[in-house]
């Protein structure tokens, strides 16, 4: 039986909600309030009492917001799909190997996951330069794949391990080959881990800065949204940056709201379970 909710909890809820919403709130104010109430005064207004669309319209006119978003979309989908293409068979294979070998492989992937991004990104960009992959969508995607692949393998492997063993044997006894068992029986059963892995890869790629920054540095026509945003921020274009930051965050807000029930600690802790 859940005990009765104490009123104190609403105080905690309110404080935490305000703290966590405030940074977004700040961006909304900068983007939608006339500048004379934000940058025109010493202390910017805290409530959007007067609203304008002029900042947003000007931002679209002055800087390229659409191009970087489209490139980020392309990169994110390549990263997500490639993660599944490599991660689903790998997750299955590792789940089926003996514990001794699979634990070693998992420990190995775990160490890969800890490699400092900048340390890896720098030599990768030198390789990619000779392969003509720098400043390309594919190059950024291939580099970011490294960030998401270990987690994808963990999630998929966890999904396969949670399936009852008999199920697969049953399908094999019924005469199905490994390939068709895999595609017709197993894949549909782990659709939730597959979905979670795809969403997490997609979101990670959408936000990723370090690899994108090194592989496709600030070239206006080639960089992804976070790198382009960094460019606008460092060129001191706060209005355009706020508009851009908000628009790029909208898909994330929708995804979190829709897929919230799948965003669980067990999926996010990188293969470690309590």
């Amino acid at each position, binding site marked *: 039986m*859940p*005990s009765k*909710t104490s009123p104190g*909890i609403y105080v*905690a809820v309110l404080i*935490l*909600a305000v703290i*966590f919403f405030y*940074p977004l709130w*700040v961006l909304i104010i900068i983007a939608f309030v006339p500048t004379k109430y934000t940058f025109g*005064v010493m*202390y*910017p207004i*805290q409530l959007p009492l007067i609203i304008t669309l002029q900042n947003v319209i000007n931002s679209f006119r002055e800087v390229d917001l659409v191009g970087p978003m489209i490139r980020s979309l392309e990169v994110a989908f390549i990263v997500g799909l490639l993660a599944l293409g*490599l991660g689903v068979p*790998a997750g*299955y*294979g590792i789940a089926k*190997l003996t514990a001794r070998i699979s634990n070693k492989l*998992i*420990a190995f*992937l775990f160490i*890969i996951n800890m*490699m*400092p991004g*900048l*340390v890896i990104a*720098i*030599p*990768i960009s*030198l*390789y990619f330069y000779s392969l003509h992959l720098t400043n390309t969508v594919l190059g950024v995607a*291939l580099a970011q*794949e*490294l960030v998401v*692949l*270990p987690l994808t*393998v963990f999630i998929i492997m966890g999904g396969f*391990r949670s399936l009852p063993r008999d199920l697969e044997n049953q399908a094999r006894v019924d005469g199905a080959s*490994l390939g068709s068992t895999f595609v017709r029986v197993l894949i549909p059963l782990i659709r939730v881990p597959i979905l979670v892995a795809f969403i997490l890869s997609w979101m990670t790629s959408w*936000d990723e800065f*370090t690899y994108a920054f090194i592989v496709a540095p600030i070239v206006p026509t080639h960089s992804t949204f*976070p*790198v382009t*945003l960094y460019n606008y921020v460092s060129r001191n274009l*706060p209005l355009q940056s706020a508009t851009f*930051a908000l628009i*790029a*965050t909208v898909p994330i*807000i929708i*995804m*979190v709201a829709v897929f919230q029930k799948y*965003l*669980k*600690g067990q999926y*996010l*802790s990188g293969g*470690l*379970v*309590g």
Partner: protein
Amino acid sequence: MEVQEEPSIRDTFKMSRKYLIYILMAAPAIAYVIGLSIFPAITVIYDSFHVNGQLSLRNYASLPGYGLYPSIVNTLIVSVGALIIQVVLALAIAMVMVKPFKGSKIFSTIVIIPFGVSTIVSAFAFSLIFQNVGGFANGIIVALGFKPVTWFSSTLSDLGVVMFSDFWKNTPLVALILYGGLSSVSPSLYESASMDGAGPLSRFVHITLPNIAPLLSIALLVRGVSEFNIFALPLVLIGYHPLILNTLIYENYSTLATRPISYAAATVLLAIIMVYSILVLRIGGAKQYAQ
């Protein structure tokens, strides 16, 4: 004898062929991460120990002149501080989330959204909040009748802004991990404890903490490593002053002449992260790879 041996050999062969299929299925992913991380890492380490093709420690010898020691100290300060802030906030969120209350769904959406927000977006928002002159934080402080704060006034305060700003994107992950532990504690345990006269603090120490300890060590490991890797946030908020390890690496990487210095600094960062991971895995007793 021969009759018995034959099937066993065939079995072994069948078994190893079966395993071969599994290994082949895992191979592309494993090869991918080896090719794109182990090889590059080896390149960096190798280059850091070479000057003009000769084995040399010169890059390392000149590292202190580029600010290695302060940058290590700064990185540690930011990492430890940020971890403490995130764990405290995450614990508060997780403890609220396990309680039933009206609007709990909206609450969890609000606190989880930052998890998906780009680090650059976060850095930009906090650069608007924390400004030495004006800015949103000082606006509130002045409205409440206090004197405005000079946020960027010393190395420590600069680092403080970075470690605080890091909470937004990264607390949700810690909260979700801790929530997994808290939600498995039966509420009746708390009820019987409070009937036995245990106060809130005693209940927290004796029931909550032991139950989340393993998950806390996981959160510390996962977040701790990423904390050493923060790059975009300090780059936007404080630039290259004060330096942390990652900005030191990038600053020297971006100039061709000092590129070997950045390789040496990168190797130092790699070593620190490896030591940290081994420490936490040993202390946290992480036989906790996915079972």
